[in-house]
């Protein structure tokens, strides 16, 4: 009985801590979206659902959803495919493997701000490294942030560069868990390397991939720092996503309620997608067959 009491105390303490840290701001933010307010200190006025009505009629909101889905979709596909490929290479035996493995994780250790600044510096249309390389081929200066397609490409490229190592690390760990006997058996049966990859490696990585894609999906859809640092949603809102739109509404246009409404809609959208995803691919070891 004494044991029961202590376990319950620990459980409620952690639930309470999480509730205060996670639930508090969430409820506060949802509450804010029903008010019209210019800042956190100014007097706020109850407007009900007006912020949402205004938001749903705003074409920029729908554009931001599309941009967010496009950026996160392309980035996740690239991160996962590139991450699996790099992990398969780094799983081979070769001289200097530990060095290459260490360097391959390096982008993940760099602060996002630094990575974005370095990329901007390299792509700078006037002084950048790429400009001088291109001009040696006779190609003139090009503003990578000034064109909607290339601006989006730069955002995707930077997020792929920074977060592929996360996929590499998880896949490398997952590869160690695939029994070598399966490959031997496949080899005896004369399965080609491609078939071995498709029928042994990929199913073996299933549980890892489910978690990795879930986490990358959440993080990419909520990605604010890379987009804000590289393009600030520009040029002309072409790379605006829901997080940057929420920030712009709340802290640039001083429309706190509008920003909170964007954040709440973004949260609901993501929660719905994640519920469907978890229903399709449950993170439950017992339900997953190899």
């Amino acid at each position, binding site marked *: 009985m004494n*044991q*029961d009491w*202590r*376990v319950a105390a*620990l*459980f409620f*303490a*952690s639930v309470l*801590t*999480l509730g205060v*840290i996670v639930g508090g701001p969430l409820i506060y933010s949802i509450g804010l979206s029903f008010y019209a307010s210019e800042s956190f200190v100014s007097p706020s006025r109850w407007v009900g659902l007006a912020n949402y009505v205004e938001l749903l009629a705003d074409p920029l909101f729908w554009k931001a959803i599309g941009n967010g889905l496009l950026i996160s979709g392309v980035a996740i596909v690239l991160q996962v495919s590139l991450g699996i490929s*790099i992990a398969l*290479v*780094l*799983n*081979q*035996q*070769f001289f*200097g*493997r530990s*060095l*290459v493995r260490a*360097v*391959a*994780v*390096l*982008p993940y250790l*760099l602060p996002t701000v*630094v*990575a974005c600044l*370095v*990329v901007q*510096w*390299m792509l700078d249309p*006037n*002084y*950048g*490294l790429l400009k*001088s*390389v291109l001009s040696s081929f006779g190609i003139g200066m090009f503003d990578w942030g000034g064109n909607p397609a290339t601006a989006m490409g730069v955002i995707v490229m930077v997020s792929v*560069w920074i977060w592929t*190592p996360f996929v590499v690390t998880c896949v490398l760990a997952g590869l160690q868990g*695939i029994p*070598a*006997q399966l*490959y*031997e058996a*496949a*080899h*005896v049966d*004369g*399965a*080609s*390397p491609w078939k*071995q*990859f498709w029928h042994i490696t990929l199913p073996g990585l299933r549980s890892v991939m489910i978690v990795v894609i879930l986490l990358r999906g959440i993080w990419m859809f909520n990605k604010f720092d890379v987009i804000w640092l590289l393009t600030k949603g520009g040029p002309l809102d072409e790379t605006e996503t829901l997080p940057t739109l929420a920030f712009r509404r709340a802290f640039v246009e001083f429309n706190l309620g509008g920003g909170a409404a964007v954040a709440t809609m973004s949260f609901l959208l993501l929660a719905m997608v994640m519920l469907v995803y978890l229903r399709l691919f449950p993170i439950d070891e*017992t339900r997953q067959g190899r």
Partner: protein
Amino acid sequence: MKSGTTPRLLRHISIPDSFLVRELEPRPEANRAATSRSLGGEHSPLGAGWLKSLMRGIRRLGLYLTAAVIFVYSFFPVYWMVLSSVRAPEKLFLDTSLIHWPPDFSAYKTLLQLTDYPSHFVNSLIVASVNIVQEGSIMIASDPFRIYCAANYGAKA
């Protein structure tokens, strides 16, 4: 090394013994060997020794080239960051050479003189450590609960 070493399940299949023995020999690096050898090494119809070693050589070369590409891809922006930091300020906007010697540390001197770098560093340290302690303690606190549930209800929490 005849039929005695053949696994029981495979004994009734009429495959030449020599084939089985060779295939089932324990390999320490079986994981790699299984994926990399089947491309045409041991039982390739062409079979000639020099061709096999040539194929293996090409595969090794390809592996090292891919590893080199991964290295450069991951390392170059970091290298460029460090290189730009030791370029003299007056050359920063003109020079895009890949090697810069001697290094110019004036940017670091300015950083320490003009900004409150040590206190920023301590701030990062405080934020990171408090975060780790907080998340770690929540994780540790929830673990007895999981064990307790597993023991008492036989369910995974």
